[in-house]
C-alpha cells in the first residue's frame, strides 16, 4: 500500500491523533431526553436568530394588536353584538391566533421545506437525533416560541385592559387549548406541504396562505365575511382556532365544534404526512 505522508509534527502528539485528539471509537448516543432537549434549544435559537421570522412571530402581531384595538370595529363589518364588546376582548385572541399561525404553519413549512431541500433532514437522520428526534425537537421549539409569543402579546394585551379570566374559570384554559390544537393541526399541514412539494413552492404557498388565512377568521371574526365564506372559514383549522380563541375570551366558553375541526385536521394531515412525506426532494 502507499504509505500516507506523515502528518505535520506540530499537530501530532505521541500516541494520539492530530493535536492530541483521542479518535479511538467510542460512539455512544446521549440519552433520548437530552438529545431532544438539545434539539429544542438549538432550533429555538435558530428560530429567534432569524429576523424575518421574528417579525412574523412578534413584530406583526404586536402591530396588529395596537392598530386593531383602536380601530372602529363596527365600521369593519363586525355584527352589533360583537361590536358592543370591549375591542380588546375580540382583538387579543385573534392576534394570539395570528401569532400561532405564523409560527406553527408559515414558519415551520418554510423551514422544513428548505431543510429538506438542503439535505438537513437526511443528515440529521444519520445522527443519534434521528428523524423522530428531529421532529420532536422542531415541535418543541415551536411550542417554546409560542409560549414566548403568548407571554409578550398577552402582556401587551393586559396593558390594554384585557382580562380574560373575568369571563369565567374556563376562559384561559379554553383559550390555551384552542391555540394548542391549532398548533397541532397547522404543524401537521406544514409538515405535509414541506415534505411533498419543492421548497420554492412551499415558500410561495406558505406566504400566500398566511395572508389569506389571516383575513379568514383568524385576526377578526368570520362574521365580518359574507355568510357563505364564513361557513367555509369555520371548517379551516386557522379559522376554527380563531373562533375557539375568541369564544374563550369573549364569554369564557369552550367552543366544541371548532375544537373538533382542529382535531380532525391534525389527525388527517398527520396521517397524510406519515404516508406521503419524503425526506429529500
Amino acid at each position, binding site marked *: 500500500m502507499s504509505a500516507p505522508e506523515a*502528518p505535520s509534527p506540530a*499537530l501530532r502528539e505521541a500516541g494520539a491523533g492530530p493535536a492530541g485528539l483521542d479518535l479511538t471509537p467510542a*460512539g455512544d*448516543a446521549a440519552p433520548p431526553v437530552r438529545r431532544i432537549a438539545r434539539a429544542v434549544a438549538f432550533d429555538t435559537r435558530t428560530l429567534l436568530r432569524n429576523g424575518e421570522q421574528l417579525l412574523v412571530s412578534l413584530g406583526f402581531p404586536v402591530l396588529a394588536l395596537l392598530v386593531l384595538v383602536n380601530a372602529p370595529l363596527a365600521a369593519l363589518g363586525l355584527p352589533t353584538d360583537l361590536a358592543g364588546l370591549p375591542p380588546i376582548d375580540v382583538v387579543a385572541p385573534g392576534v394570539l391566533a395570528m401569532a400561532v399561525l405564523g409560527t406553527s404553519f408559515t414558519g415551520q413549512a418554510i423551514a422544513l421545506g*428548505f431543510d429538506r431541500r438542503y439535505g438537513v433532514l437526511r443528515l440529521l437522520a444519520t*445522527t443519534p437525533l434521528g428523524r423522530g428526534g428531529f421532529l420532536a425537537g422542531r415541535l418543541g421549539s415551536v411550542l417554546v416560541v409560542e409560549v414566548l409569543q403568548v407571554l409578550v402579546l398577552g402582556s401587551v394585551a393586559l396593558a390594554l385592559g384585557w382580562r380574560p379570566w373575568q369571563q369565567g374559570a374556563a376562559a384561559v384554559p379554553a383559550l390555551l387549548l384552542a391555540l394548542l390544537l391549532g398548533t397541532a393541526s397547522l404543524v401537521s399541514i406544514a409538515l405535509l406541504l414541506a415534505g411533498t412539494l419543492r421548497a420554492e413552492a412551499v415558500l410561495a404557498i406558505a406566504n400566500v396562505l398566511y395572508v389569506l388565512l389571516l383575513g379568514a377568521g383568524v385576526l377578526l371574526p368570520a362574521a365580518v365575511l359574507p355568510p357563505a365564506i364564513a361557513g367555509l372559514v369555520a371548517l379551516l383549522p386557522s379559522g376554527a382556532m380563531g373562533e375557539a380563541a375568541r369564544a374563550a375570551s369573549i364569554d369564557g366558553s369552550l367552543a366544541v365544534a371548532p375544537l373538533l375541526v382542529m382535531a380532525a385536521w391534525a389527525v388527517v394531515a398527520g396521517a397524510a404526512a406519515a404516508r406521503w412525506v419524503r425526506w429529500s426532494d
Partner: protein
Amino acid sequence: MSSAAATVPTGAPSPPPPPRDDADGPALVVDALAKRYGDVVAARGVSFAADAGAVTAVLGPNGAGKTTTLECVAGLRRPDAGTVRVLNLDPHDAGLRARVGVMLQDGGLPGGAPSLAVLRHVASLHRQPLDVGVLAGVLGIDAFARTTVRRLSGGQRQRLALACAVVGRPDLVLLDEPSAGVDLAGRRSVWDLLTGLRDAGVAVVLTSHSMEEVEALADTVVLLAGGVVAASGTVDELTGDGQDRLTFGAPAGLDLRPLRGALPTTVVATEVRPGSYEVVPRGVGVIDPQVLATVTSWCAARTVMPRGLRVGSRSLADVVLELSGGDLHEPTAAAAAPPPRGRRGRRGRP
C-alpha cells in the same frame, strides 16, 4: 480483498466477500448491492468490504454508483437487492447512528446557524464526543466559528461537515468527497485527521475524484464503473507490477504497423484512445532506452511530436480511465436498464 486485485470487469457482479459473523470481521460488508431509480441503474451488484483501521476509497466516474452505495450504507436508501452489514448490524439499526459518522455530498448542515454552534449541537447528541474546541482548531473551523453555514465557502462547509461526521467518535465514517473544494492547507488538515482516524482503528470509507488523495491515503481502493466493482485492491496492486510503460499523445489514427515492425516483439504498441498511444512490455519485455529511441525515431520520420511522452508505471488515473472505459462522463441508462416506461419514472440522483 487482495485476491480480487485488478480484476477485469466481466459484467457479472464480483464474488461476495466471505461471510464474517464474528465481531472481528470487516466494519462494513456490501454484498451484491443493487439499486435503480426508475430507468436509471445506479448499482447492479456492488460487493466489497471495509476494515477497521483502514482507509477504503471508492472511486469511479460520475454516475458509477458511489453515492448510491454510500447512501445505502448510511441507511438513507434501501437497496433493491443485496445486503449491507454495518458493524455486523442492519444499516437501519438505530444503534448505529451513534457509531457511524456520515458526511453527505450535499452537506445537509442547517444553514441559519453559526458554524461552531452546529458542531456543538451534533457533539451534544453524543455521550462522550471529541473536544469541540480542539477539533475546531485542527480543522480550522475556529477561523469561521460565528459565520452561519449558508455564508461559508464550499471548502469551509466541507470541513465543518467532516467535523460533524467525526465528533461522535465513530467506529465507521462514510465520507462523500471529503476534500472537494478544500484549499491546499485545508486538505492537509483533512488528510491528517483521516490518517489519525485510521491509526485509531476507525474504518474510513470515502469517495474521491482526487487521485493524489487516494494514492496518499487509501489502503484499499474499490473502483466502481457502470454500477459494479470493476477492480479492487491496494493502489500498488491496481497500478500493476511496477513495470514501466511508455505513453505519449499524437494525432489520432497513426498507422502503427511500421512501429511494431521496428520494435522488439516483447513490447506492444497500441492506440488506447484516439490520440493516446502506449507501448507496454509483454512477458520478459522491458521499456529500455532502445525502445524509446525507436519510438522517437518513428515519430521523427513522420514529423510527429510525441506530446507528454512519459516512461513510468501507469498511474491510478490511467487505471480508472481504462477500467471505466475511458469515459469520464455520466453513462446513459445502462444497457441493463429496461425499456423506458414513459415519463412517470422518478428522476434518480445517481
